[in-house]
């Protein structure tokens, strides 16, 4: 418990340093673009791949479990839409990105720490926390919602193709997609994504930034970053769902 409080205290002290005005906006902008490329653009491929296949599997499983002839076929489209928008795109994708982006952030900062690159910044008089972490947080908060929207779209394409393979017609599927659509579900999904993006970037940065030791410590930081981010994503998923949907 004491250790947890120590981590929390250190995390908030770090975040106070992070949330300060950048020394030079030109340099900050360059760092931000670099982070958008690393955390966002480089994740598009995996997002497309996973979303397409998960979408397909969701629709096939829904269709198989609705063998009762009284249940209309368009429910496959409806169930796929809601599963993808409400849960898969924001939450599952964030868990996957916690693994990909979170571990990358933690190992990058951890390596910089053990090779004294962060010390070199501090000695120059640069606020290293703000210089290194703020662009990562802004890049993920800005770009993850786009990834989630892409995931929703591609997931539905996958669901449509999956549906075709179990005799759900395109007309039935599209009718299900449009049936009683609640636009707030997308807003809810994007709100969750922004919170999860913040968790992934800040928690992973925390573990990377305070790495102590050598290359083994970098690996440990990376693991801790992924595990902690994932746990926090699940906890906040529960809290946000209660607050926004219940």
């Amino acid at each position, binding site marked *: 418990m004491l250790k947890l409080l120590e981590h929390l205290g250190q995390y908030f002290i770090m975040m106070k340093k992070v949330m300060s005005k950048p020394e030079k906006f030109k340099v900050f902008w360059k760092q931000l673009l670099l982070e958008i490329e690393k955390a966002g653009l480089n994740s598009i491929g995996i997002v497309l791949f996973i979303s397409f296949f998960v979408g397909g599997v969701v629709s096939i499983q829904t269709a198989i479990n609705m063998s009762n002839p009284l249940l209309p076929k368009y429910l496959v489209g409806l169930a796929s839409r809601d599963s993808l928008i409400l849960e898969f795109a924001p939450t599952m994708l964030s868990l996957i990105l916690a693994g990909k982006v979170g571990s990358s952030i933690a190992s990058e900062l951890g*390596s910089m720490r053990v090779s004294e*690159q962060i*010390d070199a910044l501090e*000695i120059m008089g640069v606020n290293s926390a703000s210089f290194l972490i703020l662009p990562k947080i802004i890049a993920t908060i800005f770009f993850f919602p786009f990834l989630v929207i892409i995931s929703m779209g591609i997931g539905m394409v996958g669901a449509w193709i999956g549906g075709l393979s179990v005799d759900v017609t395109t007309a039935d599927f599209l009718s299900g997609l449009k049936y009683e659509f609640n636009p707030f579900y997308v807003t809810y999904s994007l709100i969750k994504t922004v919170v999860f993006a913040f968790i992934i970037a800040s928690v992973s940065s925390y573990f990377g930034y305070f790495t102590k030791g050598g290359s083994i410590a970098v690996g440990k930081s990376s693991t801790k970053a992924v595990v902690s981010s994932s746990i926090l994503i699940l906890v906040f998923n529960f809290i946000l769902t209660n607050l926004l949907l219940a």
Partner: protein
Amino acid sequence: MIEIKNIEKHFGDNHVLKDITHKFEQGKTNLIIGESGSGKTTLLKILVGLYKNDNGSVFFDGIDVNKMKRKEEKALHQEVGMLFQGGALYDYMTVEENIMFPLTMFTEKTEEEKLERVNFCLNRVNLKGENDLMPSELSGGMKKRVAIARAIVMQPKYLFCDEPNSGLDPKTSILIDNLIQEITKEYNITTIVNTHDMNSVMEIGEHIAYINKGEIWWTGSKEDLIKSENKELNDFVFASELFKRIKNV
């Protein structure tokens, strides 16, 4: 000149630095020598501001660092150059970008002016034309030289070097040592070198402080070192057969 008075530092129950008082002279290569774990790296980190001392004061040209305002502290940071053990070059930047970084962060120089200064520093460390190489493409010695170029690009008044020769062959070590000494004389700066390499001590040791168990046990020049009768110092410095023979000549 840098002066430290009654510096103390603890890490938990471990009393790492015990009441250290010393002066590091301007225009000279000041060496801190001592065994691993003697406290020399902690002292260097206190001097550059990476660690806070528990007691005592650090004076840069007579001004107490602990009493400096934030703005003054920031200005001081720009007068400090540091050469790290592994170079600490930014992996994702080229040699040119690494050296240019402090200029971009803290000056309003134009791109041409910055490039001119970078090329001057690269030339100074004999790496003319290597601007576009990445740190991963450099040898250990080249990394150190780029790190020196980055350390001097802002024309510092104080230069700190942490184990500048670690991992280098004897020839490259001498080259780095000589470069540090030349720069010290050329710009009349206060240079502090943290080392346990006895070749370096004999090459550039103008003003040496020997730290043992967190205390300064001995100070003097390299000439005094050879004549010294301090047992602990002799056991440390003349540990190898070669240096024992030098002492006995």
